[in-house]
């Protein structure tokens, strides 16, 4: 059974995933460009990078990204979360153009349009595949999707989602 578990707060979490990923990567890019070129013979430069403000800000944002990404995966399917948050690629491209003054070719604009269409497609559909869950002796839940629905109703408890 597939249904939507989304509400305004959860769309906000997806927006946080998208924005923290895009800005985190951009901050890392800015930080690394301010440093001398890192080669395999001078890997110590990477430790210096960890003390620069842009890299620190980028890492903080990427930690925020991972926390919000895990939160999203706890109430939505992987095949919903990944395309729904792929607008981050578009935001990175736009930040590159308007903030870092990079060139965006026609092919890139087409790529941006395709990603936007993909995001529109998936976010208008259901977000979560409900599955029968087993309750083991410790009370923790485990997925048992291989069972038929009838077996599942007889022997397992379904996980309720708001």
């Amino acid at each position: 059974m597939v249904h939507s578990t989304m509400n305004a707060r959860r769309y906000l979490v997806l927006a946080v995933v998208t924005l923290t990923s895009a800005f985190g990567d951009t901050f890392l890019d800015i930080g690394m460009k301010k440093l001398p070129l890192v080669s395999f013979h001078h890997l110590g430069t990477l430790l210096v990078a960890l003390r620069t403000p842009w890299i620190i800000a980028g890492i903080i944002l990427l930690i925020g990204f991972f926390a919000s990404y895990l939160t999203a995966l706890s109430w939505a399917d992987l095949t919903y979360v990944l395309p729904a948050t792929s607008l981050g690629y578009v935001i990175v491209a736009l930040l590159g153009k308007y903030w870092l003054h990079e060139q965006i070719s026609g092919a890139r604009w087409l790529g941006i349009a395709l990603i936007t269409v993909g995001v529109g497609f998936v976010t208008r559909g259901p977000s979560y595949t409900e599955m029968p869950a087993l309750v083991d002796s410790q009370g923790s839940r485990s997925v048992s999707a291989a069972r038929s629905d009838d077996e599942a109703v007889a022997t397992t408890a379904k996980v309720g989602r708001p």
Partner: protein
Amino acid sequence: MSPVHGLATAAMIASIVVTATAGDVLTASAMRRIGDLDEIRARSGMAGAIRAVVTSGRFISGVLCMALSFFSLLFALSHADLSLVAPASASMTFVSNAAAAKFLLHENVDRRRWVAVFCVCCGVALLAH
């Protein structure tokens, strides 16, 4: 690009895709098993939610696979161009994630999701141009 070099590049991209997909699927599986983090946080606080995540074997395995994928990417970047490796691995990971989610996580990947994956996959590949 010579045929041997082309094969080596394909193998490096494949290793990024396999480890990234394993990381995503293991992490998603761990989060599904743990349950709604918002509910856990309401019940046990932020510390309880963090404990539930970091004590999951699947989550730890997923993070290890993600780390492996990151180092595979670094290795590939030292031998091949970023403009080939990054979009190729990212777009192929979208497709392999959809297949793995369907067959391993038993998610209902309907036509709408396949179209979305295809659009995002092509879009990411085009962003490299």
